[in-house]
């Protein structure tokens, strides 16, 4: 089985790995780089738990042989926070109690991040479209939608609930 060296720009840094043909991007993130934020919920592209950004776009990383994306930019949940400081989508998920078991959360946040990067002022409908590939079995989605809309407001200058609380 011919393995290949693959280079990724991963969360801003050039990283290399040796990949077998069957190694998926998800395998590479979790097993090679130890970035276990992206989860394996189904390996069928159906749950969205493994969503990461590939060249800025949300993708289900379980369906991508990593050798096919050599040279690409990959961003994962681990790259969002600035040290201990959560980014606004993460903070909104915390503030609005948008997590329960937490398994869908990283993928959900990456889908939401991709949306807000393209559309800082999404409608509720656009939020539901953006996260419709991310299965959550716990929350019923409403707090997640609320959190994404709150993060969007924050990007338009409205402080997050937590910031208000601190004042």
């Amino acid at each position, binding site marked *: 089985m011919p393995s290949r060296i693959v280079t990724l720009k991963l969360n801003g840094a050039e990283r290399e790995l040796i990949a077998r043909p069957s190694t998926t991007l998800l395998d590479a993130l979790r097993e090679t780089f130890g970035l276990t934020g992206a989860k394996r919920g189904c390996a069928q592209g159906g749950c*969205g738990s493994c969503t990461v950004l590939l060249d800025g776009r949300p*993708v289900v990383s379980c369906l991508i042989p990593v050798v096919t994306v050599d040279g690409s930019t990959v961003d994962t949940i681990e790259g969002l926070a600035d040290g201990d400081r959560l980014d606004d989508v993460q903070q909104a998920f915390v503030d609005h109690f948008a997590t329960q078991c937490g398994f869908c959360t990283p993928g959900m946040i990456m889908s939401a991040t*991709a949306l807000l990067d393209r559309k800082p002022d999404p409608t509720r409908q656009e939020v539901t479209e953006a996260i419709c*590939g991310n299965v959550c079995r716990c929350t019923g989605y409403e707090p997640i939608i609320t959190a994404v809309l709150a993060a969007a407001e924050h990007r338009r200058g409205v402080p997050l609930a937590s910031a208000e609380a601190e004042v």
Partner: protein
Amino acid sequence: MVISVQTPDSAEAAHAALQAGAVPLGGGTHLMTRLNDRAGGDLRLVSLRRAGLSGIGVDGATVTLGAATTLADLEDDARLSYLSGCVRSIASPPVRNLATVAGNLFVPQPYGDLAAALLALDAELDVLGAGGARREPLEQVVTGGLRADDLVTAVRFTAPAQSAFRFYKAARRRLNSGSIVTVAARITVEDGLVGDVRLVLGGLARRLVRATGAERVLLGAPLNAETVARAAEADAIEPVDDAYASAWYRARVYPVHLRRALLGA
């Protein structure tokens, strides 16, 4: 098990890999789900991601979609706004960022809604085969398939006239749901009568169905509920049971959805 993945940088190289027995990998949204989950013999893949097959060309009324263009690329292209409803009805953004135009042509029903739309638009395929490049009507490929070493490089169609294209999909959920009935149609109405119609049904049967019977009923007739009801009776469709709906239900609601697709209500 996947024993190799080639990432050729040209259509010719990709085609050569197919001739050597490799299997084409578009977005992987169908094939990879199987490979991740099921045992199987050794498999060599050829990825089309880098083969120069992506891109959307609009030249006058002629539209050319590279085979490896993603569904998300179609969704984002304002020139293809008539396809937006169709594309957004397919799966979810993280899947549409991978899934390709040509891949969608070969997924089994009740998926493959873009294929229904392209068939309604009477698309042609650019195919690189053993004898070189050729054109194949999509309609022929939908029924007859392609050879294992044929490589689809592009899909071409004529853009529909203003508001002449209808796409309607009934599914169990609003978003990200397999089809129960998909209706894709190119239809023009002149002086109250149907002037031109091409009608394709997805989701109902094992394969896409060109509803030629319905087309005959519609052609030259007034586009109203009575005509559409007759049109819905005109084809022998063999609906199927699956996890989404029974054959009975599909058959039962097909006339309703045909009417909603063509008349809007």
